[in-house]
């Protein structure tokens, strides 16, 4: 428990094809274990080719692409506004963020000024979504390593948020709430009181959640010192969001590259400090999310107090047709970290190219190197600690 279970090492030669992997496994007498694509703890259809020697993994190679729906190609076919519902499917656990990133990239191209009230509506929707996404992350992480009880606890709270978001935009999962230039609907009557009421209830639940799970001795023993990622390695592999902050990198897009109305809101950026283990271990990644939920509550309370009446949609031309060759990128702090949309306008009514760089995609890239020397059972904890979502990897 006192020392890290494995030290990170530099990657050695990587084999080129799966056939070669199989050949090598045959040669060395190791076992090949196919974990997935249909496996409850891979968080979607992801396959891991696990080369094991008994219980110890030599390496786990992630094979992704099972959920590839060519969203980037669709963006080139449908119009700028028409792509908005598709962005929900980039990350269906936290669809508001995918909406926001895309909307911000197109607004940057078209020089659209979003009204203040719309920005506040966005922040309220997005922070609610962040809480619900982190609840899933925390709940499923507990379930993946064998604690079933916290999962329904987390999902029960998420239901309240689903109800709130349903009242806001009519959908419970793929919201399609944001529009280029604003939001689709204003806050319904009495929404402020309802969200405040939920926050009063939820802040108490978070304390309970900490008692139930976060500082639970078994949970801590299971996750502390496991799969430590040093800060340089996290940056080199382009880890983002809570995964990056757990390694001690003090960076949050909301604070460091301010967008929307975040400069007007006060919040802290929780970092992994190695409270029970080494900084950057699985428990830190989990705890960063729990702390972020508390900060989201803070942001929500301020946003609800500061929101002023006004327009919720900017004046836009009927057809969006930016000049050919204009391009812009947007970065937002999604629930899964820094999400980047890179949109190139082609002169027509749809984007020439739309590239989505998501947190889950880069997080999957680091699993191969981290898995070397871990136990097979710890792979599940490692995947869960990254909070990867399969559609966001494959798009």
């Amino acid at each position: 428990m006192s020392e890290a279970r494995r030290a990170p090492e530099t990657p050695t030669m990587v084999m080129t094809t799966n056939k070669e992997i199989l050949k090598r496994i045959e040669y060395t007498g190791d076992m090949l274990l196919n974990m997935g694509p249909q496996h409850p703890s891979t968080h979607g259809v992801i396959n891991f080719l696990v080369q094991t020697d008994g219980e110890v993994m030599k390496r786990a190679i992630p094979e992704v692409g099972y959920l590839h729906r060519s969203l980037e190609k669709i963006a080139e076919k449908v119009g700028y506004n028409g792509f908005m519902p598709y962005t929900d499917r980039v990350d269906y656990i936290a669809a508001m963020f995918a909406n926001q990133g895309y909307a911000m990239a197109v607004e940057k191209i078209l020089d659209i000024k979003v009204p203040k009230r719309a920005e506040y509506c966005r922040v309220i929707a997005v922070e609610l979504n962040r809480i619900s996404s982190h609840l899933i992350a925390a709940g499923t992480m507990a379930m993946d390593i064998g604690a079933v009880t916290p999962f329904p606890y987390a999902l029960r709270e998420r239901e309240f948020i689903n109800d709130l978001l349903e009242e806001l935009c009519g959908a419970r999962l793929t919201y399609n709430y944001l529009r280029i230039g604003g939001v689709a609907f204003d806050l319904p009557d009495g929404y402020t009181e309802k969200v405040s009421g939920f926050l009063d209830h939820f802040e108490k639940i978070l304390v309970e959640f900490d008692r139930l799970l976060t500082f639970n001795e078994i949970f801590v023993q299971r996750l502390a010192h496991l799969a430590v990622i040093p800060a340089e390695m996290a940056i080199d592999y382009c880890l983002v969001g809570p995964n990056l902050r757990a390694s001690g990198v003090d960076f949050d897009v909301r604070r460091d590259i301010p967008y929307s109305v975040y400069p007007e809101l006060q919040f802290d950026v929780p970092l992994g400090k190695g409270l029970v283990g080494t900084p950057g271990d699985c428990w830190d990644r989990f705890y960063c999310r729990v702390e972020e939920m508390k900060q989201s509550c803070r942001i929500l309370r301020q946003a609800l107090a500061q929101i002023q009446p006004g327009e919720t949609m900017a004046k836009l031309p009927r057809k969006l047709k930016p000049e050919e060759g204009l391009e812009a990128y947007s970065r937002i702090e999604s629930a899964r970290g820094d999400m980047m949309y890179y949109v190139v306008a082609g002169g027509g009514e749809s984007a020439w190219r739309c590239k989505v760089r998501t947190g889950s995609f880069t997080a999957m890239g680091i699993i191969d190197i981290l898995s070397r020397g871990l136990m097979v059972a710890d792979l599940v904890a490692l995947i869960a600690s990254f909070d990867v979502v399969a559609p966001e990897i494959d798009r």
Partner: protein
Amino acid sequence: MTFEEIHSALAAKLGDRVGPLQAARKDAYCVVRADAIVEACRFLKTDPATAFDCLQNLSAVDGFKAAPMIKVVYHLYSYSKRHTFILKVELDRATPVIDSVESVWKAADWLEREQYDLLGVVFTNHPDLRRIMLPDDWVGHPLLKDYKEPGDYHNISHTRESPLDGFVRMDELKKKIAAEKAAETAASAPKKELLQ
């Protein structure tokens, strides 16, 4: 550092292999010659003034009809200096080949594999260049503008018959029947006259 300062530092190192700073189109970028990309990236990462420790995004864009080339775009970010820069490389559309920057940033591994898969850009010296999203035996690179869908994959069709084919609306059906009846009576009426 501002875009201009970073660009001048890069230009001082690489000379004429770095193009001028293009600032007219929203985000300033500069074009680097393909043979200088690894050198440019390594310089930007290791130089203490620029210190670009993270490759944020790597995307390839199939050129416009007017300019048939594939552009590879590197979005760089520095966590220590908190500044950003964009590099672009223009490649021949028929044979898009470029050196991999995997040796500079590990994040490039998967990002380059994705662009190889979807746009067919070949990254030389990449340790594991194979398809990532699509199956290994897929034909073509879908994000190219002239990509044609192969029609099927292992006899799994990419298209399906529209369930609305042969579907007739009820009110149109009624109209059709009424029209047929009217035509029938119109056709039978003169016969009666003939019989009389």
